């Protein structure tokens, strides 16, 4: 046992030396994730407001103007243009200068004065479903509200007693993220994704390099066990990635106001396991890749898109086919995103997140063992 630890220590020591003598890689691994996270956290959000809106008013009566004012008053819509013909809507949509168009037909005012329901067309550019969906919801809400308030004032002017008619009023409470700030929602996930991508890259080549350097044979004639080699190689990277995580957490909290409501220990443990698991995945790629070049390519393709798309960062995972849900379980990023969000926003602790922690631990274990097994087999071919 002592001999084993000595050997692991020797490998860790060596890997640290390699790392410290390669300033570029060091910078890339330590600084880059942090810089990129800051940039992206600032840049991205799912929040939609100030949607550029074009108004085409064929009626031009006080009634239609009042209707248009409702849009002006809303913080969601931003009236940017007043058009004269319908063609201009096409142009505006094509050029993306407007996403919503409100078309008020001639006779709008007359119809209302006659006591009927006047028709209005609201056109929404559907080519960006995210904002379109929300625009749609807001349009419906705005028009329903306008309609109801018209009804009420009419009833009042008629002297009608509306006392017998009740109404329901929704009171919306947003838990965990009351300001509906999507940045807060995104940062915990983004952190996991960036680290996943960076760590898998680094270890993907580490074993292949031993073979390329020729030192692998020397290790083969020594008492060094394959698992010891793997663990020794992973430890320095784990430490570095962990430093990354800590920096990201601190910056996220200080700069973006991401709250930390849950148990920090869970986050720390989860991060360590996650890093180990991601590195393990890189190690596995390294063990099976025939060359450094292929290792690099595989790492890039395996780490990248799945981290973004299958981790739950930006796309919800509960609506996709079950088979895919299982498949997404292969990528450690998914569990880390859950843990991350849970601890930051939901105030979760061990009680809620133990399944994810356990999965990450098992994952790391399996990756390292499988990598060790595959590595040895190839080496002595």
């Amino acid at each position, binding site marked *: 046992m002592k001999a084993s630890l000595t*050997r692991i220590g020797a490998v860790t020591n060596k890997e640290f030396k390699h790392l410290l003598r390669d300033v570029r890689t060091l910078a890339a691994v330590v600084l880059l994730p942090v810089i990129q996270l800051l940039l992206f956290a600032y840049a991205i959000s799912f929040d939609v407001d100030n949607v550029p809106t074009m108004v085409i008013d064929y009626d031009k009566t006080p009634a239609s103007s009042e209707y248009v004012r409702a849009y002006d008053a809303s913080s969601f819509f931003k009236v940017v243009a007043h058009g004269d013909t319908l063609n201009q809507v096409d142009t505006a949509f094509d050029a993306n200068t407007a996403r919503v168009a409100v078309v008020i037909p001639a006779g709008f005012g007359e119809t209302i004065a006659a006591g009927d329901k006047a028709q209005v067309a609201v056109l929404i550019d559907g080519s960006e479903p995210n904002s379109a969906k929300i625009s749609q919801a807001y349009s419906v809400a705005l028009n329903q509200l306008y309609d109801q308030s018209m009804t009420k004032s009419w009833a009042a002017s008629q002297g009608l007693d509306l006392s017998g008619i009740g109404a329901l009023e929704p009171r919306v409470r947003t838990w965990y993220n009351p300001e509906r700030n999507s940045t807060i929602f995104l940062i915990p996930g983004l952190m996991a994704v960036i680290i996943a991508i960076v760590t898998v890259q680094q270890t993907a080549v580490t074993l292949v390099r031993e073979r390329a350097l020729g030192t692998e044979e*020397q290790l083969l004639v020594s008492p060094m066990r394959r698992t010891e080699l793997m663990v020794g190689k992973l430890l320095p990277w784990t430490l570095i990635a962990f430093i990354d995580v800590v920096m990201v957490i601190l910056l996220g909290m200080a700069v973006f106001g991401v709250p930390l409501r849950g148990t920090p220990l869970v986050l720390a443990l989860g991060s360590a396991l996650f890093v180990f698991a991601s590195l393990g995945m890189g190690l596995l790629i390294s063990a099976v890749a025939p060359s450094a070049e292929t290792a690099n390519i595989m790492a890039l393709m395996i780490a990248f898109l799945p981290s973004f798309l299958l981790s739950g960062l930006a796309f919800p995972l509960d609506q996709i086919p079950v088979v895919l849900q299982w498949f997404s379980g292969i990528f450690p990023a998914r569990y880390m995103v859950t843990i991350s969000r849970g601890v930051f926003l939901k105030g979760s602790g061990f009680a809620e997140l133990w399944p994810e922690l356990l999965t990450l631990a098992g994952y790391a274990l399996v990756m390292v063992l499988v990598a060790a097994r595959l590595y040895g087999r190839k080496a002595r071919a």
Partner: protein
Amino acid sequence: MQSTSPGTSAISARGLHKSFGTTEAVIDLDLDVATGAVYGLLGPDGAGKSTLIRMIATVLTPDAGAAEVFGHSVTDQRGKVTPRIGYMSQRFSMYPDLSVAENLEFFATVRGVSRADRNSRAKSLLESMGLAEFANRQAQHLSGGMKQKLMLASTLMHSPDLLLLDEPTTGVDPVSRREFWRILAGLHREGRTVLVATPYMDEAERCTHIAFLDRGRIRQSGTPEQIKAQVPGRLLEVASAEPRRTLAAVVALPGVDSAHLFGDLVRVLWTGAADPIEALTAGLGGTDASLTVRTANIDMETVFAYLAENAPADAAAVSS
């Protein structure tokens, strides 16, 4: 170093076979190396020397056959074999961005050498190999000869009984080569066993035993004297003004078995009955005033060339 008594077997291999795809690198090979020997593996590129050494070093798994090192199987008892061997590969196998001292430290630690031993041995090895002043230089910045010495030092750190060296002096300058063999001689005196692959024929002279490998098989093996005895005739050296023309002329003479260029000399193997010096001088004769003929000791180069040309494709070994 563990106690080993001369007369026991360091390496004993039977029927080793290894193919890479369709290429058969080592074919049905037997090998015996006694403890304390300096055993040279000679042969051209692609003969199978590296493959053989790597199989014995447990770095490569044979397709068929078995080998034992100090009585332990290289395939099934790897754990008992590796502590007693030191393996030096053909390509540079140290970490380029670590220093000489750091490389030694790393591999010795991995080998389980205690800290005290590491320090003392590193010190003495570096000194005896002339690397002491380069202890802090990164391995990638060493010259070819120093790199080889570094690798040798590394294999010695854990004091192995058997050294497996794969072309340790290839690409190294002659002065370093001589130094290297001086070190090997010292190891021999300490009682260690050495199996060394080399393409340099002159190095074969310094071995206690040699074997020729060609296309995956051992063609000849034995002590240098035994091997040389295989070659009939005598060796002569002809110095002349135009060696190429002399070569062409000499080969045509009766009594000449074979001849080849050696620098600007022509070496001639004489199997004829007459006195070679007279016969050659007469045969080449006349116009060249600088022509001299003298006898020379049969060297390995000639032996090998002769055997390669004359031996049929069998591996009848003259055992020692």
